[in-house]
């Protein structure tokens, strides 16, 4: 089967949502104005929140470390602007609950020059490169926000053969990775050099979806000769950008259930993350801004913007001319993005897009019918799970059976099943809840 998939250059199942990328994919990345107030939550990444090391009233320079990593799975947070710490306290977050954070007031007339750091040379040993990546505060910029240095660490007894650079960007509407590939080829290749050295990978493949041929051609035209790197174009299909699907499409291998890419000798890194590593490490700087696609029918100045981390969403929407009748705002794409309930949250490291729908787009026919067992979800699930059966079991609260017999915990919540469901059953939501309940039970069992 793996052989077959390899020849097809794609994975099984998946869906084809309308792309809507043409609104922004030809717009170059532009610098976003600095807001007067930056709001920085301390947990912008998966893992332990960073620990604040500055005091209220302290003046800080752009690029200075404001909070340091407290554990292995944690990263520091840098000042996105030069200014003064106004307040340390609770800040609103996308998840809904408040979290510890910093209110940073920007100096209006500062040159916003970035503080100098300790450069990490390409010749450094793998451990030093990993440390450099951690010190730069880098997390997966595709949206997952998992600390990159943790992912790059090859466990004892395993080896990394393939470094896969994820330039798929399969979420509709989003074009940040596309623009980064067109505009930051050199940063990407520098990043790849760091990553190959850190992981010991023997070969690098940049995977790009066929709707970004220009990016593929641009990168191919600039391929360096000193490292074994190639560009592969794969068919457009959601969720091609998931790690597992990308590995299957590029290598014809399947990551074992419950395993990690390293189990098939691979490490997958998002292309924007790679570019940021290549941009920051040679100067020893930390991450202060990121590229965000701001788009959707509710926005008049759509585009790809380099936005300082911590910029409040309300300020962003004012700058890009949000319509009066906006109804839903999502952080991320329409398939996996999270609906925003509060415009006082800010752009964080994991924000790849801001999508704004008006009243006109918010689905009219959302009436939920019973499952008619049409099997559309079964034909959509990229992991060949049985969402229909899982959905019925979730209704009966048979969470253990879902996990034990139907691979619930493999589900990565891509949303393909809900997308195709004619009965509008919120399957992904069921699975999200079921997974958290199963996780709690497993924890309780371990402790008990």
């Amino acid at each position, binding site marked *: 089967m793996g052989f077959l998939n390899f020849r097809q250059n794609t994975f099984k199942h998946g869906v084809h949502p309308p792309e809507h990328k043409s609104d922004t994919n030809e717009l170059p990345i532009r610098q976003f104005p600095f807001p007067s107030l930056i709001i920085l939550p301390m947990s912008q990444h998966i893992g332990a929140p960073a620990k604040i090391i500055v005091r209220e009233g302290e003046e800080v320079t752009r690029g200075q470390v404001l909070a340091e990593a407290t554990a292995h799975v944690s990263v520091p947070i840098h000042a996105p602007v030069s200014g003064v710490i106004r307040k340390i306290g609770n800040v609103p977050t996308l998840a809904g609950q408040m979290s510890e954070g910093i209110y940073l007031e920007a100096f209006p007339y500062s040159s916003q020059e970035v503080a100098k750091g300790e450069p990490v040379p390409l010749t450094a040993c793998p451990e030093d490169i990993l440390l450099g990546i951690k010190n730069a505060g880098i997390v997966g910029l595709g949206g997952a926000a998992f600390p990159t240095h943790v992912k790059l660490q090859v466990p004892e007894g395993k080896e990394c053969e393939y470094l896969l650079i994820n330039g798929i960007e399969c979420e*509709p509407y989003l074009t940040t990775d596309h623009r980064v590939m067109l505009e930051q080829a050199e940063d990407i290749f520098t990043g790849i050099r760091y990553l190959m050295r850190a992981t010991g990978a023997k070969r690098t493949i940049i995977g790009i979806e066929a709707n970004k041929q220009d990016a593929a051609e641009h990168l191919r035209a600039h391929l360096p000769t000193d490292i074994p790197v190639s560009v592969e174009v794969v068919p457009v299909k959601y969720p091609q950008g998931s790690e597992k699907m990308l590995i299957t499409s590029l290598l014809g291998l399947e990551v074992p259930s419950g395993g990690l890419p390293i189990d098939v000798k691979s490490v997958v890194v998002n292309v924007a993350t790679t570019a940021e590593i290549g941009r920051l490490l040679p100067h020893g700087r930390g991450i202060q801004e990121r590229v965000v696609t701001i788009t959707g029918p509710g926005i008049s100045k759509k585009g790809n913007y380099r936005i300082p981390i911590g910029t409040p969403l309300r300020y962003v*929407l004012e700058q890009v001319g949000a*319509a009066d009748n906006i109804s839903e705002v*999502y952080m991320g794409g329409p398939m996996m993005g999270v*609906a925003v309930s509060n415009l006082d949250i800010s752009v964080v490291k994991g924000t790849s897009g801001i999508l704004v729908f008006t009243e006109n787009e918010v689905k009219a026919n959302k009436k939920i*019918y019973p499952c*008619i067992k049409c099997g*559309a979800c079964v034909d959509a699930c990229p992991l060949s*799970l049985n969402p229909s059966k899982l959905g019925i079991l979730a209704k009966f609260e048979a969470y253990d059976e879902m996990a034990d017999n139907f691979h619930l915990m493999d589900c990565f919540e891509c949303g393909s099943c809900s997308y195709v469901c004619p009965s509008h059953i919120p399957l992904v939501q069921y699975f999200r809840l079921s997974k958290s309940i199963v996780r709690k039970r497993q924890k309780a069992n371990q402790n008990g």
Partner: protein
Amino acid sequence: MANRTLHISTSPHITKGVSTDSIMLNVVLALLPVAGFAVISFGLNALLLLITTTAACVLTEHRLCRWAGQESTVSDWSAVITGLLLGLTLPPIFPLWMGFIGGVIAIALGKFIFGGLGYNVFNPALVGRAVLQAAFPVAITTWYPAFLGDRFSSISSSTLTFPFMTPTVDAVSGATPLAAYKFEQVMTGSQDLALGLISGSTGETCAVLILLGGIYLAARNMLNWRIPVAVLGSVFVLSGILYLIDPQVYPSPIFMLFSGGLMLGAIFMATDMVASPVTPFGVVIYGSIIGLLTVVIRIWGGLPEGVMYAILLANAISPHIDNAIQPRVYGTVKKQVKS
């Protein structure tokens, strides 16, 4: 913008735009040409029968929902499908009062007591027909010739039989191709079968229109094409083997495909999403079982036609097929065996 109330919803925030009621409505649309041909070939009798069974199903569903204190589910169109399918499987001069009872039973016993749409174990239309077959064995096998000259001007006395009375059998009657084969060993030409120039149940005669309806639905992804392919394929292969063994005794595979209720059953009834398995391999097994049972009942059973019982039996084992056959999950070596 500043003071807008934001709506929040869970991802994904877009849908494909297909909804259950639109699927059901499309099935109704795909059945309309079949029903239209039934009216053209059998006249007013067929028209009245289809109206009666459909009205019976819709009214029953509406009434039962109200009595159960629920919102009426008539607007999802599924009761219309049941009513049309039931009417199409009955003989054209079937007494209307019996058709009405069939419609009530199809919805009440075939669907509602299981919990309504999505929970029925059997195809509701076939449950209604099975009860009618048991209750009125003569009326349901009283056939009528197609394309009679007065079909648009007169109504058969059988159609208008007074409720709870036994219909008087008309002088004219036409044997169906399957009955002719079974009881008189007479074969009907395959061209007549395909085009529906024959006697038979109201909507089972024109195989071409049924096929077109199926192709329309399959092209719109509203019908699992694997089911009719498996049903028709297994009938073709099995009857083909028998035909090769002895063409004098066994009918040709073409005759088997285009006669009786097989085409309508394979395309519009075996494909009832609720009562069929969901996995790709599961539906192939399910369809093959229907094909096998159809051939066995037709050739060795006491009845001339076996599609209805074949589908009902396969409906019954469909949940077990679903339990036994799960697709191989990504990243696993072999499929998980369920206890």
